[in-house]
């Protein structure tokens, strides 16, 4: 599962990418022969009005790709605070894993096997994948994929199956040293633990035999999509200027030596732009400068890049800012080509429309208030395990109001683990229409119908204890109060704003929520039942942010009863069964059924997602910067495709 916790801006850690999408589990596609021009870019439709077709819930619009002459230059792109890349080797460590290190920086040089984003849509862009879609056999226990012939390393050598194996054995050496050496490693799940053997029968084919049948879509998107081939003929050394070591596939000790050398080089940030190792790339760009102190960097086109790109390629420069305010000032002064408007400054965005295009879209994931099903304080565990209570709480949330008041219209509603937007092939029907719309009267009615004495602006108490119809439910004694604590993350501010409104509405039906604030790191460390059992009774609800979905949006790890990120100890046998099916059955609709059930069950309070260009805000780019609409839309999903951008003047 490549799901990442999203909290404060500095800690947003999502990989865009990753995982492929809607292809059939057993399909195979022929090798694509993409033309290396923008004509082979991700699909997008246009309108006669000069803008790309409007997406549901979008903010602003995206103009069609300019048809005039393309001009080369250097395009400046804003980097928000704390966004400096910290790693370059395509076996990214857990500590370095962030959207600003992986998709913005690493993927520009070292492409993943599958490109799992198409504009705002969480689905694969086949032309940008290094490999053709996998072929499954042996009862979904064997997977075979072939590499495309058009992708080459910058030194002219083709990307081969040996490069995949080279990455594989070095990745295994890395996690043998420490599981934290590869950010996407989950013990016992996916690669490499579920892989019995890996072979390369020829230079373009790789075969993986698995220990058990898996869901093919999940495996392609969560496991194969995480593979980034590395140049085996250039990086197979254990010292600068050393002789090639060729037995890395059969000698783990040598694989370890090579990994240790490469990871050691990757720790030297000051040599990123000058180390010859990092100049051998298969992505569209090479690094030409890197400033260690600020994280500023410049990338120049890789002329041997075999994937689609603009006819006239430009260099691009990441310009770091120390605050959102500083970045927005740069946008207002016109000194940055591509940047963002922070959510809090959105009312000023209209003043930029003469010189900038504007577009906003929420990313694929979910924000939520986690419930602690193990908190025994004042019988909270017995209260929150009642579905009617969770339904009443959902009725107290005004998602449309939050988007209007706190996001200034730049956000999308989310009623479950699969948000209403962006739409996904796996969206269940109840992901699109709020199953528990905002209504304080409905919430009060639910409570009254279940034996509670509702005291508006007071504190409700259980009047009818018992497990029968119209009674409070098992474990709730007469006089039990609806009162508990809610801890929220202070950054970004919209978290506190939403929680405060929710508590305010709850108060109107007699539910007392005692609010307190904390910070992301403290919350994840301490308000987390699996990893912090000592503090189980210290929190009833918490809002630290949320999670990003991979294109295959299973909640394995979060809402299955043994999940390592199941913060509040949610345990439901039916949910366990559905979640397990999502990763191990061959049913392509399994994850949809999982999402539908969880949306109905409300294991947490699902919240709207704000627009997320550069982590928070809407995207703006100068009118003389153009490209396919999807290349700009994807920035809202943490997808950087500067190879498609060009200047019109």
């Amino acid at each position, binding site marked *: 599962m490549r799901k990442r916790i999203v909290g404060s801006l500095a800690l947003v850690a999502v990989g865009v990418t990753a995982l492929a999408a809607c292809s059939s589990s057993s399909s195979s596609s022929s090798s694509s022969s993409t033309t290396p021009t923008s004509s082979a870019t991700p699909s997008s439709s246009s309108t006669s009005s000069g803008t790309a077709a409007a997406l549901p819930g979008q903010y602003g619009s995206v103009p069609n790709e300019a048809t005039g002459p393309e001009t080369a230059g250097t395009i400046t792109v804003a980097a928000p605070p704390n966004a400096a890349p910290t790693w370059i080797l395509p076996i990214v460590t857990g500590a370095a894993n962030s959207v600003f290190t992986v998709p913005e920086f690493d993927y520009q040089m070292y492409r993943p096997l599958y490109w799992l984003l198409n504009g705002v849509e969480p689905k694969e862009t086949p032309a940008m994948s290094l490999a053709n879609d996998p072929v499954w056999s042996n009862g979904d226990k064997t997977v075979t994929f072939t590499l495309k012939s058009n992708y080459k390393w910058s030194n002219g050598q083709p990307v081969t199956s040996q490069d995949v194996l080279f990455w594989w054995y070095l990745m295994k050496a890395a996690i043998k040293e420490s599981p934290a050496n590869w950010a996407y490693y989950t013990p016992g799940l996916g690669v490499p633990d579920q892989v019995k053997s890996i072979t390369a029968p020829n230079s373009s084919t790789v075969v993986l035999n698995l220990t058990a049948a898996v869901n093919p879509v999940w495996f392609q998107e969560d496991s194969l999509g995480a593979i980034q081939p590395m140049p085996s003929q250039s990086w197979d050394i254990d010292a600068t200027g050393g002789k090639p070591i060729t037995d890395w596939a059969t000698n783990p000790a040598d694989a370890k030596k090579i990994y240790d050398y490469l990871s050691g080089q990757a720790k030297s940030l000051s040599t990123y732009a000058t180390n010859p190792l990092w100049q051998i790339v298969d992505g569209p760009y090479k690094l030409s400068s890197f400033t260690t102190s600020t994280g500023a960097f410049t990338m120049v086109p890789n002329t041997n890049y075999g994937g689609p790109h603009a006819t006239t390629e430009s260099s691009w420069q990441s310009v770091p800012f120390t605050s959102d*305010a500083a970045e*927005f000032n740069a946008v207002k002064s016109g000194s940055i080509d591509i940047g963002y408007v922070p959510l*809090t*400054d959105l*009312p*000023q965005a209209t003043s930029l429309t003469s010189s900038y295009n504007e577009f906003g879209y929420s990313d694929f994931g979910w924000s939520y208030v986690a419930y602690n099903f193990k908190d025994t304080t004042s019988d909270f565990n017995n209260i929150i395990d009642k579905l009617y209570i969770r339904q009443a709480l959902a009725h107290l949330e*005004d998602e449309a*109001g*939050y988007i*209007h*008041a*706190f996001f200034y219209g730049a956000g999308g509603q989310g009623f479950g683990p699969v948000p209403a937007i962006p739409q996904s092939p796996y969206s269940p029907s109840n992901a699109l229409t709020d199953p528990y719309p905002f209504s304080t009267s409905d919430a009060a009615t639910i409570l009254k119908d279940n034996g509670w004495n509702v005291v508006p*602006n007071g504190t409700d108490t259980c009047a009818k204890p018992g497990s029968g119809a119209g009674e409070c439910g098992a474990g709730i004694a007469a006089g039990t109060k609806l009162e508990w604590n809610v801890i929220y993350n*202070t*950054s970004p*501010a919209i978290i*506190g*704003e939403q929680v*405060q*409104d929710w*508590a*305010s*509405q709850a*108060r*109107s039906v007699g539910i007392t929520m*005692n*609010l*307190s*604030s*904390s*910070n992301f790191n*403290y919350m994840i460390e301490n308000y987390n039942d699996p990893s912090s059992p000592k503090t189980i009774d210290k929190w009833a609800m918490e809002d630290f942010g949320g999670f990003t979905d991979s294109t295959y949006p299973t909640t394995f790890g979060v809402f299955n009863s043994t999940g390592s990120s199941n913060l509040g100890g949610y345990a439901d046998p039916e949910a366990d069964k559905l979640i397990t099916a999502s990763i191990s059955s061959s049913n392509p609709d399994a994850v949809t059924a999982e999402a539908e059930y969880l949306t109905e069950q409300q294991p947490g309070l699902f919240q709207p997602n704000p627009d997320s260009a550069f982590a928070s805000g809407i995207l703006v780019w100068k009118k003389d910067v153009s490209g396919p609409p999807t290349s700009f839309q994807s920035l809202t999903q943490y997808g950087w495709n500067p190879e498609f951008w060009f200047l019109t003047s």
Partner: protein
Amino acid sequence: MSQIGAGSLPPLDITRAPEGGEIGPIQSGWRLAVREFAQNKLAVLGLGILIFFVVFSFVGPVFYHGNYLTSNLIATNLPPGAGNPLGTSNQGYDELALLMKGGQAALEVGFFSAAIAITLGALVGAISGLAGGIVDAVLMRIVDVFLSIPFLFIVLIVAVRYGASVLSLSLLIGAFSWLVPARLVRGEVLTLKVRDFVSAARVAGSGQGRLISRHLLPNAFGLMIVNVTFQVADAILYIAALGFLGFGLHWPNQDWGDLLSNGVSYIQDGYWWQVYPVGACIVLVVIACNLIGDALRDSLDVRLRRR
């Protein structure tokens, strides 16, 4: 033999004012202090401002029933107008009502923490000054250690760990604010304890406790009163800083720092009513406390008092 005769002295001028000022009826020290305070226009202004904010914060809500409890998402960020004299917040709360509610917290924390600080500080300072020797050394080293701890850092940690309320913040601020009063009172006690009236009390059989409670602290009372005013101002600034950093009080409680923090986020959007009024409240109350403190120092210290 020379003779000093009356004729060599200057004639007595009974119309001339005596040196050192007019001699009037003998008045008590407190009455003199009050007279001195009342003659200080800035002090009166400060007192007026403080009284205004006390009335505004605690009596205002009795007559003005603005909404600060139930958010109203269709009335967010409204400018001042009918129904909302100072506009609305980003939650749709009435800004004037928020100012009143925030003022309650600021003043409660300010006065309560100042009371804690001065009580603790006076006790430690008096014991330290009177006992001297090893007791004095130990207590003053404790003061030194506490002074070296970054106060705001500790408050932030405690606020995150245990949550923030008027009581907890008052206790916390008070627990770190007694250090300066302790040093001041100790210094005062060092000068007082060698005075004749203290020696007389000792000879009369007064114990250490009685000396402190009946003779030393009452004579250091002026200094303590002055310090209280500064402690109040400091505490209001502390809670404002905590609120500004997002670790102050939580809904349904409000504090001015939190309001200011929210407002600053939107200052460039033109929502001035979320920034300037609350900023003015903080500045005015702190200035008022400082003006009162300065005037009290002038009026309670006989060396500074005008005749």
